């Protein structure tokens, strides 16, 4: 017997803000999370690569790995903190879907917490103990990286399983033990790879910024950082264009159609994303010739626009796949205006405080 499609009802309590506002907050905070995650995960992959290339302590690859290892823990902190907000807004808008997929993959989703604690300590181990770890330093780094890759894989599983509504009932009735993943979904692999490779490209760009700042501060080690960073950025963006196309092909037909004229915005986003990808690659190759004298602002702006485009495409895929199962127009809304204002004021105040602290820190470190 074919089980029916089951979708939980939306929460009985009204939403405290219009859906569009929550969507904006979701996308905005997700963008911040994405940038931090890219720096962290991409940086960690680059660190591991550098460690493998390695050599003696004075070799440029080793020095690069040492430098990167120092900042990873703080990047994990930034990723986690910036990840909380989009997860909150996701659960607010898409709770019906997100809670269900989380339960179906219960152990996998729960594992994220445990694995993250170990992975996070793994980065501190590299940062605080460093050379004292001796021969186990690189293997330990490899394990830490694998743990983070596992976490990313669980996120890709969950964010795609929450859309795979038609499979839920069969999964649950086959076993309620929370051992499912979304492995049968064709879009899982490209979705995950797109994210991981993209993170290395973005981290490469950041590394180039860091290297250039070092060169300008008369530290010659910066030159190498720019080269490595720009290589990562350019080559992985190139590969990611292909993965992106695979990701597109793996979509269900009705979603693909949206991007091929079925929906003007979706089609435009697809076009912009594709063209931007090519422009980024070409600009990356051309810029790389200039070494540390490279102009990074144009590339960075292109990348930021590309990230926003990708987030919006992802949203189109999400809403397109859910189709009639997700009807935000029917959600009851009772705006809590005062609370929204309080939040906004706190956020602005918090940002001011944050910049003040970072500025103090920056000045002190450069003294």
């Amino acid at each position, binding site marked *: 017997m074919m089980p029916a499609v089951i979708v939980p009802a939306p929460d009985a309590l009204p939403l405290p803000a219009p859906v569009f506002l929550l969507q904006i907050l979701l996308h905005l905070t997700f963008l911040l999370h994405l940038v931090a995650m890219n720096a962290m995960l991409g940086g960690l992959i680059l660190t591991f690569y550098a460690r493998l290339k390695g050599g003696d302590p004075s070799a440029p690859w080793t020095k690069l790995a040492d430098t990167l290892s120092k900042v990873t823990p703080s990047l994990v902190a930034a990723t986690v903190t910036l990840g909380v907000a989009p997860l909150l807004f996701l659960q607010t808008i898409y709770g019906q879907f997100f809670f269900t997929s989380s339960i179906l993959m219960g152990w996998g989703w729960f594992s994220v917490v445990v694995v993250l604690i170990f992975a996070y300590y793994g980065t501190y181990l590299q940062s605080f103990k460093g050379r004292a770890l001796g021969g186990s330093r690189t293997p330990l780094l490899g394990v830490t990286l694998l743990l983070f890759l596992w976490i990313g894989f669980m996120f890709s599983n969950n964010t795609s399983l929450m859309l795979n509504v038609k499979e839920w*009932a069969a999964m649950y009735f086959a076993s309620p033990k*929370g051992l499912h993943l979304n492995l049968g979904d064709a879009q899982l692999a490209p979705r995950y790879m797109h994210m991981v490779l993209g993170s290395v490209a973005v981290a490469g760009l950041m590394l180039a910024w860091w290297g250039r700042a070092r060169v300008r501060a008369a530290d010659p080690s910066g030159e190498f950082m720019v080269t490595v960073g720009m290589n990562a950025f350019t080559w992985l963006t190139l590969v990611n264009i292909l993965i992106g196309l695979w990701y597109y092909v793996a979509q269900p037909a009705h979603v693909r159609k949206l991007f091929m004229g079925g929906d003007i915005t979706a089609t435009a986003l697809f076009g912009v994303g594709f063209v931007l990808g090519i422009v980024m690659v070409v600009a990356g190759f051309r810029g790389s010739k200039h070494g540390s004298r490279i102009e990074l602002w144009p590339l960075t702006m292109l990348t930021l626009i590309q990230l926003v485009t990708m987030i919006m495409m992802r949203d189109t895929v999400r809403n397109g796949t859910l189709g009639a199962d997700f009807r935000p127009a029917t959600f009851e809304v009772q705006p809590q205006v005062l609370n929204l204002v309080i939040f906004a004021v706190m956020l602005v105040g*918090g940002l001011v405080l944050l910049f003040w602290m970072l500025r103090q820190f920056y000045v*002190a470190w450069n003294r």
Partner: protein
Amino acid sequence: MNYPVWELPMGGGVLIAVVSILHVFVSHFAIGGGLWLVVTEMRANRNRDLDLRAFVKRHSRFFLLLTLVFGAISGVGIWTTIGLVSPHGTSALIHGYVWGWAMEWVFFFIEIAAAIVYYYGWDKLNTNVHEAIGWIYFGAAFISLVIINGIITFMLTPGGWLENQNFWTGFFNPTYRPSLVIRTFAGTAIAGMFTLLTAANLARGNFRGRVTRWNAGWAFFSMLGVIGGAFWYKSAIGVWDANEALLGAIPVLPVVAGYFKIGLIITTALAVIPLLVPKLWNKGLVAVLLIVGLMTMGAGEWLREAGRKPFVINGYMYSTGMLVSDTARVEDAGMAASARWISPEAATSEVRLGHDLYLAYCQVCHTMDGYNGLRPFLAQWDEETVASLVPLTGHMRALMPPWYGTEEENAALTAYLMTEKPPEPGLWPADPVAAEQLAWDISCGLCHTVSGFRPLIDSFAGQSPEEIDGFLDESGDIVDEMPAYFGTAEQRAALVRFLHKMNPPEGAGDQAAARPGGNEGRDS
């Protein structure tokens, strides 16, 4: 009901408890410890006490590693876990309090950033700025408590929110202020405990004595604050009608309350030692102090959680996800029709229907062999007994959510439960006292206690075993909720002995006093 249910061998409640008790201990340390850091640093700076300053710096690394990694991630972990075990409750908390969580997130963010700047800023930032960052850290951490405390206490005592569903009415609810006091002092107490740990690793000498006494002061005086807050909390609670819950209406509660009280006393007493005689203090004692502190905190949180039974949000939503406002509709429609995740197979298989109903309505609190395990009961019951008890669950003293099964659904649940009955007949204890206790647990004890909630202690006063035995024949005719006695001859004999001993003749060994309240401690 609305969401699928994760079938966990140990039970969802246990998973939540493990994650949250560890988190709560460390997260309170993150608050109180933040205050300790900045206050102690200022003291060191004012007195030009370089030893003390080095001690603070050393402790701050431990603080960073424990609170930033374990503390922060396990906090996200609670959220993840409650979303898996109680998605309906989590969703309701998020819908009602999105802006509360969003505000909390701002301070969480500042807190984490400040902790990093504070740690990496040692000896780089000038003293005033470093202290200012310390205060920013503590301020942000404390405000995040101020916010979360509103949402947590709301779940137990939503107060006027039930009428107006207003954010702030629910936030500043009847237990908000006492809970904030308890948690604030708990934070500084735990700060004292963990800094005593750091101090125990110092070489013995004057400095170690001085810093041990300082830290012990934090622990001891804060514990007095916690105790004061606990008295206030108890008087403010007002949700446990006539304290029925504490009398055994919620079986586990009286025992946990006992642990909590004893834990408070031991923790406070232990903290006196390093305050008065720092020389006696050592690593072993600090380990004991931390473990007792953790268990006491766990008991406190458990009390709050268990005290909410059978609700996730008191008076609004049952732990099964059923809304109080929805009960009439569920009663009309039946349990299966009100649960979404009933498999198509259930239409043709009674056992499958029973299984799916069990998952939807029972699994959230019960397991078969672990927490709130049902198999030990099933082992002693026959099918007729289970069938007679299924419709009565709402009346049992564990305060279960209402069950509105149709006859068909009751039969299906019974059929499924019988498949979980061990194939061998349940072993009857050879020890007479254990047998008497078990005979009580699986019959009268389901709804009554000896001397607490719905007490039976006076009911059989002066009656002979024969009279009690005769009463069992008539027990089904007294009130609708009470079934006829259903035990085997062996169980019946043991139960009669239990009921007879409950109220012993004067001068005899006081059995009842030896187990006040009977089996209140048993989880159910």
